């Protein structure tokens, strides 16, 4: 097997007395969608925040393309090619599509940070990048607050890719959307996967969604990996059982029936 794009080795993250991650191993491969599944509190958010440079791991080591890395800030992670699309998408509703797209990475001429914005060029790039993954916005000057949830997802994903993300972390991208828009986002994920050069970490609660687009699965419960494998390897196993953190569905059915 090829060298994974990202490898996490025995990641431990403690917040004071609380152990959020307890020795996580994870491999992310190029051109694959890697579904990260687990119940609330399983440690998914902490794990991606460690990968994104928001938190520093207490123990363990991250490797990007085989080289050990230490992220002091989200900026370090971004520079290493890890782009995170958070649940809130890190978009600013009052600002225009273009200003959001280039937020923090504006194209300018002149001395920093008072260089003049190259607005026309930024408008053009924003429009082109969004068309590439399936949305044609009519006016890059429109405020993000006027866009639909699916459009906002696309904007956030297009932005991450444009700024060199080799790994795209999507934190529950479908959770706050209606049915039709959920499908739009899954299509966007499929389009990005089809490029072949980008790895996607797809965090979700939804078994159906993960089965539709994911190549590889990792299941978390109480800060530990309780199951992992490719789609083929997991065939026949009870995914729902792993997703629920190892709770037997049959037990649950009995418990509910008994009430």
């Amino acid at each position, binding site marked *: 097997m090829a060298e994974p794009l990202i490898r996490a080795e025995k990641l431990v993250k403690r917040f004071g007395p609380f152990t959020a991650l307890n020795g996580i191993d994870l491999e992310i491969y190029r051109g694959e969608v890697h579904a990260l599944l687990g119940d609330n509190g399983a440690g998914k958010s902490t794990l991606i925040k460690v990968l994104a440079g928001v938190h520093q791991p207490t123990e363990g080591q991250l490797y990007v393309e085989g080289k050990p890395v230490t992220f002091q800030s989200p900026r370090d992670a971004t520079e290493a090619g890890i782009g995170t699309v958070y649940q809130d998408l890190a978009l600013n*509703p009052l600002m225009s599509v273009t200003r959001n797209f280039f937020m*923090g990475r*504006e194209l300018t001429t002149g001395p920093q940070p008072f260089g003049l*914005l190259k607005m026309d060029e930024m408008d053009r790039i924003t429009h082109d990048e969004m068309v590439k993954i399936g949305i044609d916005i009519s006016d890059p000057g429109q405020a993000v607050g006027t866009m639909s949830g699916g459009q906002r997802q696309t904007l956030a994903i297009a932005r991450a890719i444009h700024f060199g993300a080799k790994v795209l972390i999507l934190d529950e991208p479908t959770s706050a959307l209606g049915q039709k828009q959920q499908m739009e986002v899954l299509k966007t994920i499929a389009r990005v996967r089809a490029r072949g050069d980008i790895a996607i970490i797809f965090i979700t609660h939804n078994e159906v969604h993960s089965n539709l687009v994911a190549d590889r699965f990792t299941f978390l419960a109480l800060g530990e990996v309780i199951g992992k494998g490719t789609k083929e390897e997991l065939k026949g196993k009870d995914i729902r059982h792993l997703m629920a953190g190892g709770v037997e569905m049959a037990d649950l059915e009995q418990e509910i029936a008994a009430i």
Partner: protein
Amino acid sequence: MSEASQPGTKRTESDRLKKGGTFSSLMRRPEAGAFLVMIVVIAAIAFASEGNAFNPLGLKNNLSVIAQFGIIATGACLLMIAGDFDLSIGSMIGFAGMSMAMMLKWGLPFGLGEATPVTAFFFTLVMTLALGWLIGTIVVKSKLSSFIVTLAFLFFLRGLTEVCFRVINSSTQISGLPDYKEQSWFAYMFGGEAFGFVYDIWFWLGGNLNRAGNQWVTGLDARVVWWLLVAALAYVVLSRTQAGNWIFATGDNRESARANGVPVDKTRVSLFMFTAFCATLFAACQVFDTNTADAAKGNLKELEAIAIAVVGGTLMTGGFGSVIGVVFGAITFGLVANAVFFIPAIDGSYYRVFVGVVLLTAVFLNESVRKRITGGL
């Protein structure tokens, strides 16, 4: 719905954004309301004062007040767009004025000898910028609301100003300083006159005459130039530069700005330093114009600055606003504050009644603008 069901016309998400004409896009600008209010006020005051508010002297006096408001409101506006308040602006004006006048009267601190307008100004500016940095750093590091931190500095700086006056000067006023603007070009830059050519041309054209038939007014106060400079600079920085994008991003959603690599803390601290700079500029113009200082100078100016910024279309919650709107707001407030001098029949306190009414109206207006932008939720 009928168009959607027609075969061949595929409606997409982006078709739902209504595209208006030039007029409706102008009305969606943050400064639209401020512009309309300004026009009404200019017309009303011109009418009620029988044009006296805009005669040569009226124009000079009005623009002097407008420029004062404009300078501090520009600082308040940028800071508010980044999501913070500065309630210490007024006390900072008092402190800076005290500092400059005391140095001019009693010499530089640490036994550095006599002060000139240049050294007095720059010593003061270093102190006020350091204070602005301190306020900003406390706000950023403590994660407390800037409202509380700057409220503390409102009291702290005003008290400190009074104490310094009493201890060193044994009076809370300084008057009778030499007229520095007569000797020093530097003092003249703040306290002197500008745009004299406009009045010269006015005289040459047959206006601008006093009773004896000579030229009446020779120029506008120099602070008008500073106001225009500060406003122009703030406009370019806010709407055309990278720093401007950072200011908007910081105020709209601080966490998302941070996640995208915007240096949120630096932006906020810099803006607190900018309001301190504006307050110092305000004080310098006052000190070098009148050659006096007073512990009460700048009282309540922070609230007027915030009110002007809001009337100019700046959202209280940050992320949205306009320097042009603040220019309109400053003109409106300056004219109304000065109206009593041109319309003797009215009571000067109507100014505050007006401020209250306009402020509340502006907040409602801004709220509806925000809803229109964010999709009405």
